[in-house]
């Protein structure tokens, strides 16, 4: 799945490119580290030069040359429009409703777009202790919309989360609204196989597009619940040469910086 196949790009590259395309220009985007950061910066370096990237360490309008390893890399502050304290980022920006898109990854997701980044197994006796909530619960609560990006597999797309760290459409229907959140919830989940969107009524994630070469069977097989599939299933445009070049340049610069002892 991850090697460059005959098509000339990997499934991960397709996922990142598909995710990046969702980010409109001028968007204020609260960026999680990892693939979300990769996708958001790809967007900034291609079709969305005026997107405003916010990282939870307090950088607003970050323009990193290389992908940050963490949310507090110096790279993020260097060319940012503004740098504020962590309370300000969460209170004056995220909670205030200034964030158009919250861009999140996760370890597990359920059919309503709820996310787990806390534990596998029980909370008291975890099989795997994951890093925890970080900024995700409030991003999920307060961003106008949320984009989620993660690889599709039965281990990740589960019938029931071991732990609800961040709320999507809760138990579906009106249940998110009843929690009093001001943000709109997840509007898209981008995986290495395709694209899922919530049903407008029930909030249940529905497969709406497949990446070139993926099949409905693959997607169903990689999902821990009985996956809804849209009648008019789209096929994602493959990555353009331009997108691939920018993405690979970015990754190369990042890998070089990562090996280099910067200090």
């Amino acid at each position: 799945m991850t090697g460059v196949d005959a098509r000339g790009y990997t499934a991960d590259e397709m996922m990142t490119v598909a995710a990046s395309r969702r980010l409109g220009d001028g968007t204020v985007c609260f960026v999680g580290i990892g693939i979300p950061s990769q996708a958001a910066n790809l967007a900034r370096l291609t079709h969305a030069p005026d997107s405003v990237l916010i990282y939870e360490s307090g950088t607003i309008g970050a323009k990193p040359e290389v992908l940050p390893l963490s949310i507090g890399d110096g790279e993020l502050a260097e060319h940012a429009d503004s740098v504020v304290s962590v309370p300000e980022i969460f209170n004056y920006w995220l909670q205030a409703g200034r964030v158009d898109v919250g861009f999140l990854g996760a370890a597990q997701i359920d059919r309503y777009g709820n996310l787990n980044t806390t534990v596998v197994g029980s909370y008291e006796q975890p099989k795997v202790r994951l890093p925890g909530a970080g900024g995700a619960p409030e991003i999920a609560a307060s961003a106008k919309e949320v984009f989620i990006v993660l690889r599709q597999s039965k281990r990740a797309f589960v019938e029931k989360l071991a732990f609800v760290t961040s709320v999507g459409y809760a138990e579906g229907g009106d249940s998110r609204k009843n929690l009093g959140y001001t943000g709109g919830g997840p509007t898209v989940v981008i995986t290495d196989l395709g694209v899922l969107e919530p049903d407008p009524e029930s909030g249940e994630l529905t497969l709406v597009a497949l990446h070139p070469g993926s099949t409905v069977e693959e997607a169903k097989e990689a999902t821990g619940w009985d996956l809804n599939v849209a009648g008019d299933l789209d096929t994602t445009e493959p990555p353009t040469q331009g997108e691939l070049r920018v993405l690979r340049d970015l990754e190369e610069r990042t890998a070089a910086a990562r090996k280099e002892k910067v200090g």
Partner: protein
Amino acid sequence: MAEIMGLREAVSGLVGDGDTVALEGFTHLIPFAAAHEIIRQEKRDLTLVRMTPDLIYDQMIGMGTARKLIFSWGGNPGVGSLHRFRDAIERGWPHPLEIEEHSHAGMANRYVAGASNLPFAVLRGYVGTDLAKVTPTIAPITCPFTGEELTAVPALTPDVTMIHAQQADRKGNVALWGITGIQKEAALSARRVIVTVEEVVDEFEQHTFGIVLPSVAIDAVAVVARGAYPSYTHGYYGRDNAFYEAWDPIGRDREKFGEWMEKHVLGVEDFAEHLRSIQEQGAMR
């Protein structure tokens, strides 16, 4: 007023067994030197507080320094797990670790409340998450004007906060710039404050987004050059990303971890010697 003194003296005088201790830093300015001094002085039963516990908390937890951890995200940034942290939670080694888990927004506001001498902070969050079920320090609160229900979290008031900064002046005022994260609130919410700095200067440089913590809000300032290594100090040195990657196999193995800590932390006099020690051995490259 801050006294400029040695780090050993500052830690032995201001940190006690059983204290609640926050060592803050958001990737930037992580107080590694201060954490090592706590480990060397074999402080015990600490309640460690931190939004983003990372390698230094991994080291402290692995060395049995901590009884409890209050946190919101525990990982090796850009690399993966904190294995000592996981070992303590998953298998109770070297002893069980009590945890109190929040989100970043919750932790940030808890520090703000502490710095403001308020018993609690209010935010929009937690509702519908399992955090609200497993963490007792999350409670609903109603707006007396609109009737809206929000979430309250109690103030954090560490006994000691330790941070690293770029510069102090001779009066003990401390200047930080670049990403300053939650350091101001972490310091101002604490009963005692220790700051390690890269250097003491006659006058601070000008930096937009720079903050100055006044001397009267600090107890001890200790000069420790490269005291945030392998994290970074904006304007002084970059982050040693290779160290973070090299830590993964060390932290993963109880024995390797013990040997590394014995050799490079317990077996050295101070942070300068620690830096020489890992450099000479090519230990982290």
